[in-house]
């Protein structure tokens, strides 16, 4: 870490650590953002897809409506197009190919089978209705726990069982469990969810005759990766494709993928030379896009009499759906389960087996937090169960077992390298803020209230070695940024990551300000365009603050050197004495200064005044960056929830919610708070509301938001965020990735709080979301036991 800002006032108005209002909000809140659906091109055709009505079936025929054959496309029409492939590098991985338009078989409801083009979406839907799709329904694999049964139908007929990948790890397990005083075995499951960004997916594609390339506007988190995937599927050079992500209304992982719709639209624009558009609607999202979070755990925790955690044994199933998605594959989720389950705890032994099973459901995508929300739920409920068994306060049990600050940096049982942090202190602060003692008093007074904790770490901005180790087909390397002064002395930053709600137009400008002293208002961020920005694997994995932030710092620091060299000449002072502040260069020892504007003007339009040869050194720089280790930063948080349970109707009310969060040095605390709050709202959805039920035949049973419940503002309690700030020794400013954190803790904290409220009755909930029906069932079990 370079202690650049240690010398400066922490309250620096615009630099690292300042809560600069988000610059992009003026545009977005005034309705002036430009999203894919706002783009209208002359002659543009709308696409409606004919989608599979069944979860598993053999396509007998697809008959195009008479006279309109030229407007309808099926798989056989896509000459030269190959399906989407994402093969894990791990041994034993079973391969699948996701077709652009299904041929032969359909493997989940909502899978595209034909594409219909017309002048409006309504007419395209008319056309889609007129396509005769004849499918022979096959028995479906709907329930992940039965996917490996001997008589289960095969999702991919050339496989021997419905498993993408099976993994096993055993680290000193048997030796560690000797002397266990408490052994608790639990079964947990989480439900399949829809990520439900405000803006769904969408594409507009057209052929640019002059550039001889197809331009794809896509609501994506990773334009560069999409381009690579498109080039592979279409068999054309990267130079023939430009991908642009305009304003994007939320991603959360749903847009971290190459979709069939993107491939088809690009092919259509290239082939037909007509602009085409597809905008996902909510029915498509809900019925064909429920693609995250579905896990099943059989987990056993072992602890000594004094509460020391000895070992954990787990068998986890991830419902990976029908295909391995590009670029993260079908196995990212299970890889995370196996490696992250131990969480922030010191363990003596650990054993974990995982199965990424194939089912007739949409292919799984990594939703904010990825597997962490599920593993945190499983692990933290086991901790509470052990604590209850041993008669220890749950937060005290955690306090005794989390990695202490003096052990940092710490390598845990799965070889995760914790860079820094004070986990016990986070627990203490959360316990004090939620006031455990007051809850216990209310319980003694007969109130059905409960308190629950969840403590977890979030590995973020992890890089090459981690993704290569997980066998993920796309492995991130360094991140790059270009910094460039314009003739008026403004700064242009070009980054390959893409902002879709993270506030990067503000935070990356703050980092540039830190290095160059350029006012934030004079920094323009160019992002989300493969033609204009350096390659990047995109925005995901809580990586931008660390990776793109580091790259912007490196590029602007390089540019600062060049600016100092010119200023040194103009101010007649050595470069080391030149300070860059308030958009100007000045000597540390004199009042004389020269503005960036003047320096730029000279370089671009009056080079005769520059030091000799200075015009040969560009006022722009591209630099790569990766942290000192690529194993990731470990931000962490402790969530504490206070709930009441209504015994008559089984509802859970959130009375208080505290998050103690340590994201290292915060680039912009206000932006971080926004990220944490938004994530927590999603986590509350996972905990209490969201579930896409599938029936035996693999049919999704919720087609609108009347049936798929998302929490609204009214369901989110006031959330108190308490910050700790332990710098990461690995990153440029000590910052850590924190973007997913808020979504990870709520299911565990809320479930533990509900179970705390029910503890006196001897029953517990074990499934997400915690619906009134679940709670009433648990209460009925308690009554049954009492009778």
């Amino acid at each position: 870490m370079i202690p650049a800002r240690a010398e400066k006032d922490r309250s620096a108005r615009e630099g690292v650590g300042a809560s600069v209002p988000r610059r992009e909000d003026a545009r977005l809140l005034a309705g002036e953002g430009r999203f894919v659906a706002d783009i209208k091109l002359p002659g543009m055709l709308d696409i409606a897809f004919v989608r599979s009505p069944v979860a598993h079936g053999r396509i007998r025929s697809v008959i195009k409506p008479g006279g309109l054959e030229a407007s309808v496309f099926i798989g056989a029409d896509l000459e030269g197009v190959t399906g989407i492939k994402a093969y894990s590098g791990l041994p034993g991985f079973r391969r699948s190919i996701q077709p652009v338009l299904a041929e032969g078989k359909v493997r989940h409801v909502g899978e595209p089978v034909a594409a219909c083009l017309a002048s409006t979406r309504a007419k395209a839907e008319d056309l889609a209705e007129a396509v005769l799709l004849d499918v022979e329904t096959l028995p479906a694999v709907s329930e992940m726990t039965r996917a490996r049964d001997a008589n289960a139908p095969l999702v991919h007929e050339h496989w021997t069982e419905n498993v993408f990948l099976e993994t096993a790890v055993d680290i000193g397990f048997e030796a560690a469990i000797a002397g266990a005083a408490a052994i608790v075995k639990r079964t947990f499951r989480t439900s399949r969810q829809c990520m439900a960004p405000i803006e769904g997916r969408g594409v507009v594609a057209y052929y640019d005759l002059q550039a001889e390339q197809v331009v794809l506007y896509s609501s994506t988190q990773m334009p560069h990766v999409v381009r690579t995937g498109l080039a592979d599927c279409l068999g054309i050079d990267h130079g023939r494709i430009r991908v642009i992500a305009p304003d994007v209304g939320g991603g959360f992982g749903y847009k971290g993928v190459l979709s069939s719709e993107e491939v088809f639209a690009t092919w259509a624009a290239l082939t037909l030379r007509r602009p085409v558009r597809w905008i996902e609607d909510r029915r498509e999202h809900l019925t064909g896009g429920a693609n995250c979070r579905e896990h099943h755990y059989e987990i056993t925790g072992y602890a000594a009499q004094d509460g020391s955690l000895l070992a954990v044994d787990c068998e986890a199933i991830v419902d990976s759906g029908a295909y391995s998605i590009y670029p993260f594959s079908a196995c990212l989720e299970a890889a995370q389960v196996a490696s992250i389950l131990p969480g922030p705890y010191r363990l003596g032994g650990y054993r974990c087996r995982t199965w990424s099973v194939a089912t007739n459901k949409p292919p799984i995508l990594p939703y904010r937090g990825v597997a962490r929300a599920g593993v945190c739920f499983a692990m933290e409920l086991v901790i509470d169960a052990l604590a209850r068994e041993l008669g220890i306060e749950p937060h005290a049990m955690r306090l005794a077992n989390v990695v202490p600050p003096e052990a940092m940096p710490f390598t845990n049982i799965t070889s995760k390298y914790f860079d820094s942090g004070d986990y016990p202190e986070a627990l203490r602060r959360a316990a004090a803020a939620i006031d455990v003692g007051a809850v216990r008093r209310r319980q003694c007074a007969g109130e059905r209230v409960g308190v629950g904790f969840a403590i977890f770490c979030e590995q973020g901005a992890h890089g090459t070695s981690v993704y290569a180790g997980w066998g993920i087909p796309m492995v991130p390397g360094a991140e790059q940024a270009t910094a460039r002064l314009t003739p008026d002395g403004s700064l242009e930053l070009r980054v390959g990551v893409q902002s879709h709600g993270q506030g990067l137009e503000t935070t990356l400008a703050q980092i540039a300000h830190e290095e160059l002293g350029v006012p934030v208002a004079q920094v323009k961020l160019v992002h989300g365009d493969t033609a204009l920005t350096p390659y990047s694997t995109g925005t995901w994995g809580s990586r931008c603050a660390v990776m793109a932030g580091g790259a912007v710092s490196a590029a602007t620091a390089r540019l600062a050197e060049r600016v100092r060299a010119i200023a040194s000449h103009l101010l007649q002072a050595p470069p080391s004495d030149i300070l860059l502040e308030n958009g100007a260069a000045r000597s540390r020892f004199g009042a004389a200064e020269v503005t960036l504007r003047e320096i730029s003007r000279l370089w671009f339009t009056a080079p005769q005044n520059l030091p000799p040869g200075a015009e040969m050194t560009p006022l722009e720089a591209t630099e790569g960056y990766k942290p000192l280790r690529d194993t990731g930063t470990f931000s962490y948080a402790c969530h504490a929830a206070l709930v009441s349970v209504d015994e008559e109707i089984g509802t859970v009310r959130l009375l208080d919610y505290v998050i103690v969060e340590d994201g290292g040095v915060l680039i912009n605390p206000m932006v971080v708070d926004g990220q944490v709050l938004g994530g927590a709202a999603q986590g509350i959805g996972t905990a209490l509301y969201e579930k896409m039920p599938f029936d035996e035949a693999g049919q999704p049973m919720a087609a609108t938001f009347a049936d798929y419940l998302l929490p609204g503002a009214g369901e989110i309690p006031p959330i108190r965020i308490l910050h700790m700030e332990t710098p990461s020794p690995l990153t440029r400013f000590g910052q850590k990735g924190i973007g997913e954190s808020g979504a990870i803790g709520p299911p565990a904290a809320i479930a533990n709080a509900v179970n705390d409220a029910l503890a006196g009755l001897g029953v517990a909930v074990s499934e997400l979301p915690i619906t009134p029906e679940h709670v009433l069932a648990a209460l009925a079990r308690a009554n049954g036991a009492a009778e």
Partner: protein
Amino acid sequence: MKAAAFAYTAVASSAEAIGALGSSGPLAKVAAGCQSLGPMLNLRLVRPERLIDVSRAVDMRRTTDEGDALVYGGAVTHAEIEDGLAPDATPGWMASIARGIAYRAVRNRGTIGGSLAHADPAADWVVTLTALGAEVLLCSPAGARRLPLSQFVTGALATALREGEIVAAVRVPKRGPAARWGYWKFVRKRGEFAKASAAVLIDTERQETRIVIGAIERAPLVVPDAQAMFAGPQTHRAVLESLLPGRPQGSLVFHAAALRRAIAIAQGETAQAAMP
């Protein structure tokens, strides 16, 4: 998710609407706020040939005082009742009911007449106006008729509306300060369709006591012996079970809870609240 093509006529009065309906044939549909019809059109669950939009029909936008009752034009919106722009026939109950309907965006456009004509068993007006003893004013080329709401709603999404007839207005009896009211619905989140609901009216002045159970996938249930329910919640489950045979126990739990809570609110034991 775009509607199949349809023709569209906006009318300026109920008379014009009736005329348009008469000349359009059976596949025309009356539309007002479109908060239920709109999604159904987009999901292509309904495919009318023509929509006759009454949301700007002048006489259907009015509220008229008839002395012992207020008559709300069918196109008066929930938001207008919530905000007091349309007068309240009750001591604030209607505004409170309106405030609990879905979300403000829905209330801005959704109408009282539209809600009744749609007759969703979980809809707030369907349940509460039955309890409040409201009547609908139905108009057609054949003339006008008045029907108590309890006879108008005949089932889930089913009404006594005849071909060519529209819900022109809703007549709600006024309630004095001595009258008591309780309404409670079970929802997991604000704005959601109720999974169970109950409304209780105790009007000693007009000697009316009514208890209505809603969100039961049929017309609202008017409990025959309302007085018996006030004896205490012990018998509620059994009574509901006999009145609603075949209903799963899991669902009766919520209806019994709604009933108990609505009575408690009406009896002043707990404050009126829309949420559990």
